[in-house]
């Protein structure tokens, strides 16, 4: 089922959470709503779910107007950040809940429900835990049960609100992969909210970046990452080095490094954005954009070697080079070298 958000706005008292949002979620896709706290992404998700209603605008499901429909009539499955499992029911009863509250006419038989629940438990790999209570499960297990519970009613749309936010890093990683694989199997239209850009880039078919109640950019992960629309997007999606820049003959010349806070996006002065792994280290300046720096820290524990340098003015620059390059170069602490961007974006 496809979802269309048309000109949706929502305020809570003085605070405007959503400002005229328009968005399309194509059927069968896994879309991430990505943004910092307060960007409105959860509010938007809840609008889709029917847990909250927009002040203006409409929410359209498969071409049919559904803005004011009650949550229970929308056929959505919602997974909460803190699982919200029913504490006094077993795992089985939790998963079966949606099926057991269906009106008499459409309610499946007890056998059918049992069968379905066991199928789902198998899907989430928690077969043997059907009779446990939520308090007896780990965080990751609980979240999987929450997912199974949402899937039990065969929703048209699956909505997840920071589903892995409350879990350990390792579990988060596992569940991320698992969610992706699950989606590849069942292809239900899914929207999930996250503030973790890594998660979004890894899992989603399409990313919608939000900030302060507006959609800043949307597109497939590669596009959003490599072709950020503005400084905010660039900044949000990874670490960076920031430099003042000036334009000469259509070429950008980088000047002094800048700090993020001083680079308030005012748009007047051009700023150059360079990712650490797009910086080069050389023994001799290779271009106008290379500048001297002193090596202060080298961290070779990881897929790339992280080198921290300090410029003449005392500002820090982060560079990531491959282990090969590191072996070639052999930079030593306190050595003076030259650094420069291989690729940069200027906003």
């Amino acid at each position, binding site marked *: 089922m496809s979802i269309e958000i048309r000109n949706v706005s929502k305020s809570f008292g003085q605070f405007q959470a959503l400002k005229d949002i328009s968005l399309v979620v194509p059927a069968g896709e896994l879309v991430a709503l990505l943004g910092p706290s307060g960007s409105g992404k959860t509010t938007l998700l809840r609008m889709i779910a029917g847990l909250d209603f927009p002040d203006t605008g409409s929410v359209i499901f498969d071409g049919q107007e559904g803005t004011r429909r009650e949550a229970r009539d929308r056929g959505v499955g*919602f997974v909460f950040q803190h699982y919200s499992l029913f504490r*006094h029911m077993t795992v089985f009863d939790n998963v079966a809940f949606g099926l057991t*509250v269906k009106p008499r006419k459409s309610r499946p038989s007890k056998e059918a429900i049992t069968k379905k629940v066991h199928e789902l438990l198998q899907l989430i790999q928690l077969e043997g835990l059907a009779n446990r209570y939520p308090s007896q499960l780990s965080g990751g297990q609980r979240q999987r049960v929450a997912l199974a519970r949402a899937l039990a009613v065969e929703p048209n749309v699956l909505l997840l609100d920071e589903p892995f936010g409350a879990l350990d890093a390792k579990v988060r990683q596992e569940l991320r992969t698992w969610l992706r694989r699950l989606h590849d199997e069942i292809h239900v239209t899914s929207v999930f909210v996250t503030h973790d850009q890594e998660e979004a880039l890894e899992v989603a078919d399409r990313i919608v970046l939000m900030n302060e109640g507006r959609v800043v950019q949307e597109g497939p992960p590669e596009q959003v990452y490599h072709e950020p629309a503005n400084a905010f997007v660039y900044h949000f999606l990874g670490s960076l080095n920031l430099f003042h820049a000036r334009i000469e003959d259509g070429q950008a010349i980088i000047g002094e490094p800048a700090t993020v806070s001083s680079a308030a996006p005012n748009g007047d002065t051009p700023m150059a954005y360079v990712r650490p792994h797009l910086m080069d280290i050389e023994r001799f300046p290779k271009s106008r954009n290379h500048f001297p720096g002193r090596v202060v820290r080298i961290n070779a524990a990881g897929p790339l070697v992280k080198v921290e340098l300090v410029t003449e003015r005392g500002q820090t620059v982060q560079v990531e080079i491959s282990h090969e390059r590191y072996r070639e170069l052999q930079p030593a602490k306190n050595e003076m070298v030259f650094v420069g961007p291989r690729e940069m974006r200027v906003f």
Partner: protein
Amino acid sequence: MGWTIFYLCLIILIPLSMILVKSASLGWLGFWRAVAAPRALAAYRISLEASFIAALINAVFGLIVAWVLVRYRFPGRRIFDGLVDLPFALPTAVAGIVLTTMYSEHGWIGSRLAAVGIKVAYTPLGIVVALTFIGLPFVVRTVQPVLQEIDVEVEEAARSLGAGLWQTFRRVLLPELLPAWLTGITMAFARALGEYGSVVFIAGNMPMRTEITPLLVMIKLDQFDYAGASAIALAFLLISFALLLAINAMQRRLGALPALR
């Protein structure tokens, strides 16, 4: 530390043991005769029945009141919320005379009910009314905080899965409220059992009909039958104690479910 225990012993244990001692002075036969006299048995029955019914009324209405006060907004809500503690703060004698006046045949409510043939004052019904008043805050105040603390998301989860309001209430909210609700009901019941001031005015105090146990004890004391009074008091204390223990055990059984931990 030691002083506190001393003070408490002085103030509580010793007095209580007096009841035992005095009752014992009757000997087994005398004790039994005092405790099982028809008038005494009637008094226990009246006390237990009226307290039970009042507790049930408060169970139902107290739950509704707590629900409404927590979940809905309406003009005057704050005032009504504060008012719930009135039976706690108002002297029982004042409650007694005002309830009697209101429900007597010439009272504001009593007159209207008399028109339909219902008599409240000086009947067991009056006792129930007074005990309902006295127990009102217990259910409301024990349920309110629990209701407030229930995670809204759990309700939203149930709704998003297709449950209607009644289904959500019955299957998701009620189990969470149950322990507190039962505690409140028990407290209202226990309080009603021992209540004196607010009941003696409205009850009419007819032996065998509307005479509650505390009143019977009082009457025996007035007659200087200290032993008899102690015996009845002791018997009633034991009955009440046994009842409360039973309810407590039942509550503990419910609380033992891993889910409610």
